[in-house]
């Protein structure tokens, strides 16, 4: 939760810390003020290697500012961010350590994808063969000689990822990477992030929607109005756990009775004859159906509490004139 102290060499105050190779990103007491706007306030958290860390918050919560501060693009008003133990600007070969996808518009429209990558490959001193590797990796080989101006948003996202991967980095930082990707692209990116983290590397991915990254992340950090409101796993999110099981079965009436016998009374019949069962995991519903000799044809469990618990922690950028959400939605 709090900033982890590094079990590093005995403190050497005379010399600045040396660059490590652990792929750990540490944000310590970061604050950033843009003129009158306090974008980030005293934010601290650590991003560990070997995991996908989700960085969540509503629009305007300070996610992008935090990520850009981590990458040396924005100067903190106070506090610091280190990667491998040193500020980004002091990394000797930054693009070999960190790859970042920040926005999908960082391209010259009339430059083709391959030329874009070749320029940045040269800038960071990787061989040109790496360009074709990353193009193939993100599935853009066929579009390599097309001008980026004609690319779809999803293709630009892929090219941005290819650029980030040029230096074969140890840390991957992605700011809202899902926007613009089609479902297939989103699924591919999930798998990519998982395998990247599984190889012992670090992934930090931001989103304003928990659902978008819930399946991918090991850890989440939630910020609201520039400060951290939660860090932990999804299961540790405060608030009531709620699940909904949707099922079709041979005898809905008997199942409803059986469920009521087990104290599960919040059951909603749907017009097509299927049932929505609230407040019980799908395993339990299945056991009860078996006990009541009701055949289950189809069953799908869904957690619909996550987004609600996420929203309860955060304050959106724009506050419509509504009272704060209460329990009124209840177990309906």
């Amino acid at each position, binding site marked *: 939760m709090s900033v982890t102290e590094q079990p590093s060499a005995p403190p050497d105050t005379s010399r600045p810390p040396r660059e490590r190779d652990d792929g750990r990103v540490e944000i310590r007491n970061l604050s950033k003020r843009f003129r009158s706007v306090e974008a980030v306030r005293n934010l601290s958290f650590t991003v560990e290697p070997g995991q996908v860390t989700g960085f969540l918050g509503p629009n305007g919560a300070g996610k992008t500012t935090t990520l850009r501060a981590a990458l040396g693009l924005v100067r903190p008003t106070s506090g610091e961010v280190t990667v491998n133990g040193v500020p980004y*600007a002091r990394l000797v070969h930054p693009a070999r350590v960190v790859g970042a996808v920040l926005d999908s518009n960082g391209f010259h429209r009339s*430059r083709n994808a391959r030329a*874009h990558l070749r320029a940045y490959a*040269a800038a*960071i001193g990787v061989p040109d063969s790496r360009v074709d590797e990353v193009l193939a990796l993100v599935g853009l080989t066929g579009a390599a000689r097309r001008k980026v101006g004609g690319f779809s948003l999803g293709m630009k996202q892929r090219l941005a990822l290819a650029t980030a991967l040029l230096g*074969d980095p140890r840390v991957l930082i992605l700011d809202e990477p899902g926007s613009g990707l089609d479902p297939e692209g989103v699924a591919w990116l999930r798998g990519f992030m998982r395998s990247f983290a599984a190889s012992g590397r670090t992934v930090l991915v931001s989103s304003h929607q928990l659902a978008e990254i819930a399946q991918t992340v090991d850890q989440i950090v939630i910020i609201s109005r520039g400060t951290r409101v939660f860090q932990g796993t999804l299961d540790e999110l405060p608030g009531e756990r709620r699940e909904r099981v949707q099922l079709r079965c041979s005898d809905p009436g008997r199942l409803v009775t059986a469920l009521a016998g087990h104290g599960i009374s919040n059951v909603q019949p749907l017009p097509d004859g299927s049932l929505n069962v609230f407040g019980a995991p799908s395993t339990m519903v299945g056991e009860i159906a078996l006990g009541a000799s009701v055949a289950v044809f189809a069953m799908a469990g869904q957690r619909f509490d996550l987004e609600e618990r996420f929203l309860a922690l955060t304050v959106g950028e724009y506050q419509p004139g509504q009272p704060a959400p209460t329990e009124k939605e209840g177990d309906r």
Partner: protein
Amino acid sequence: MSAPALEIPQYGPWSARALRDRVRAESRKTFSTAAWWALLLPAALCSLAIGAISAKDGRLAHSQAIALGSFGVIFAALFGVVCATAEYRHHTVTTSYLGAANRPTLTVAKLVFAALVGGGYALVCAALSILGMVLRGRHVAAELPSVLLVTAGAVLVLALWAVLGVGFGTWVGNQVFGVLVILLYLLLVEPILAVLAKLADLHSYITYLPSGSSLAALDGLTGGEQFGGRFGIASPWWLMLLVFAGYTAVITLVGTGAAQRRDIT
């Protein structure tokens, strides 16, 4: 990841190898887009025209200096501005700084590259102005040494103007603003100052302004003729070149400092 891990090089960000890599990156950025020839083309055509028109009489080195000192300078400076500000216009500065977290290393690479392109502009414009003279039937061979001397001076002057353009572009960031300021300054501000100074009998001071000093350097190389009738006192060309190099250095330092503090959002 399946790809074999790339070896992390041992050299630092200020090593010659890293600088060469970054200059090569700048070259790839420039030559994969159209701005470099779109700016060279008018400069080259104007040099051809000036070479042809002014070759009727007078010394060839003189018309050479006019061609390079006017249109060559403008477009070399604009190239520098565009080279630096295109990064902001197309938001590529984010990626560029991610690869060059030590920001001055990127600026220095741009300065070196722009100097090379500026010198290249000078050579192309010089060649075309000579072509213009030849087309008008002038015997260039007889005056070749002085023509080559001015060309060599113009390589330095245009390289410096391109460097100044990078420094100024890095300073202001905004491409439209940067291009407008350079154009207004070269086409309006200094010419008006020159006229006013002449009226006030202060015209020798004009040679200490940016454009004035670079033109005076070329003028000095032609043998001290009065460049465009603007200069009364012919200072040594190398002194004028130093004055102009001073302006270039100051603007470049200011630009590098501004870039260091800028938030890239």
